[in-house]
């Protein structure tokens, strides 16, 4: 009796695996995320997807898709056009411009260490709750790639290479949008930055300048910069708390940010605290790219804060316009911030246009 049942089960499994689409049973070559030493030492494990495990073939496909304009409505724009490797996968323009020449209204965010966004709340306004979900949006956004998914999928299906690459990655050459987002998400999770001079300083491999060290003290000092409550610390090398704050930019909001997503007026004017990694490459700054230089950013927190109802109480010196840093402390803070730059990240050969 038991034997019969096992035979029955086996034949069912056999049937499924022979039904042409191998996507349920096919397993590409597993590829664990390489967790950098400083992350494994101080942080909890990255967030990966059970439904979308990292594989060699999936990452390679995602990389090709990321740099290929094939996903856009008229075949002229790739993800990488507004998320450029040399800019830590952000856009040096204040607002990115879509295929029809229309500008957006927020600055393109850098793409780095996305698997360490523990709350999985993506975008400046938290509008996507997984990386895969995030990737769905720009393809059809009329002011971005302005395509339809059926059209994007048809372009890939009719391509000489993509059907084979999807089969290698997912066991099926029948392409759909879910596979596209999965492949790109796998590639994005490999965009890991942990090689700045400050990272090496924490690991005891590099000595910072006295000015950089003083700048770190300004950053950590509640009486001076007090940046660390939102932007990481010696033991949190993400340099963000991955949550949302109103940092005193506006008295009235043109853009409600998180509040427009949650519908909760308490969230109005709140935006994701971005990582301070690779600021050297990610100008302009803030959700609307209003500041061209780091000096402007520092001056904002020092003298430029304005009050609104949802301002974070951590912007404690708003009544004085800010924390009133001395010129010496400002210069030191900037030097420290630049020590978070990771040239090995932006130049990583695995992160460039394939071929």
């Amino acid at each position, binding site marked *: 009796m038991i034997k019969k049942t096992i035979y029955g089960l086996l034949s069912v499994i056999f049937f499924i695996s022979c039904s042409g689409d191998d996507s349920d049973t096919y397993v590409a070559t597993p590829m664990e995320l390489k967790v950098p030493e400083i992350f494994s030492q101080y*942080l909890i494990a990255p967030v990966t997807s059970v439904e979308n495990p990292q594989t060699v073939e999936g990452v390679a496909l995602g990389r090709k898709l990321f740099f290929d304009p094939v996903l856009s409505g008229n075949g002229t724009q790739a993800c990488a056009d507004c998320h450029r490797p040399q800019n830590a996968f952000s856009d040096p323009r204040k607002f990115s411009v879509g295929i029809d020449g229309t500008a957006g209204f927020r600055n393109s965010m850098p793409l780095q260490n996305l698997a360490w966004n523990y709350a999985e709340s993506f975008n400046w306004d938290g509008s996507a709750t997984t990386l895969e979900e995030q990737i769905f949006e720009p393809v059809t956004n009329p002011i971005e790639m302005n395509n339809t998914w059926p059209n994007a999928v048809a372009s890939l299906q009719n391509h000489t290479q993509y059907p084979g690459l999807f089969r290698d990655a997912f066991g099926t050459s029948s392409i759909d949008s879910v596979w596209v987002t999965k492949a790109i998400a796998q590639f994005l999770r490999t965009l890991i930055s942990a090689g700045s001079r400050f990272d090496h300083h924490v690991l005891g491999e590099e000595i910072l300048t006295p000015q950089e060290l003083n700048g770190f003290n300004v950053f*950590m*000092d*509640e009486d001076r910069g007090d940046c*660390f*409550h*939102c932007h990481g610390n010696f033991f949190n090398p993400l340099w963000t708390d991955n949550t949302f704050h109103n940092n005193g930019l506006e008295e009235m909001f043109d853009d409600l940010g998180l509040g427009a997503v949650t519908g909760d007026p308490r969230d109005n004017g709140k935006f994701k605290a971005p990582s301070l990694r690779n600021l050297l490459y990610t100008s302009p700054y803030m959700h609307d790219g209003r500041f061209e230089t780091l000096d402007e950013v520092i001056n904002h927190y020092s003298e430029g804060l304005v009050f609104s109802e949802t301002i*974070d109480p951590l912007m*404690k010196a708003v*009544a004085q316009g800010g924390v009133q840093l001395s010129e010496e402390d400002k210069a030191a803070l900037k030097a420290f911030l630049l020590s978070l730059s990771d040239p090995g990240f932006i130049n990583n050969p695995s992160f460039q246009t394939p071929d």
Partner: protein
Amino acid sequence: MKNLLFILMLSFLVGACGNDDDNTPAEVAVSLKFSQTFDNTPFTDSDISATVYTNEMGHELTISRLRYLISKMVLKNSAGEMFPIGEYHLTDVSNATTLLLNTNASVPEGTYTLSFVYGFNEENNTDGAYPDLNSVSWNWPLTLGGGYHFLQMDGNYNVNTDPAPFNFHNGTARVSEGDFEQNFVQVDLTNSLLIENGDVIEIKMDIAEWFTNPNTWDFNVYSTNLMPNYEAQKLMQENAATVFSASVE
């Protein structure tokens, strides 16, 4: 011989199942629930940045962030036996998953008292030692003695007149540069907790007690930049003793 062994095993099995006519109390899993009030009014996520409270000094305030750490949770029975039930726990009122802790511990059904450390004691307050706490930026600056925050309560006072922020953050106290003083509190609650199967121990924080008993808190003197302020740090520690209570539900 074989038969004898079988009978012995059987009787052991029967004995183990015969819960009712046995003196050994059943082991019950220990769960902790964390709740907050301001005086007797519950404080939950929906009150964040919304509900106005009045503290002992008469300041009207709202709270926009509340996180706190307790450690070394222990149940003690009437015979003085200690049952450790948790190493440490960070509660974040805005994160529902942190409001309930299913500990891996179980204790015999019975009556206990609850003890824990508010914050970390000196031995456990180790720089960067807890990846889950690092990952939510709970660290206390190294220049202030390092380790971790014990409490972060941010909000505004004078909310109905001239709103001004407060950052009520507590951790190791810095006496002077390089000289630090421990600031944790050993909390030994004295009320009896009868713990039976399915019970949850509720650890309650009365936020109002941070602002009174023994020290009436004056935001006009202490509102921001309190972390490096030795006096403020010690006043918070003194007020911490009456903040916590526990019950079984």
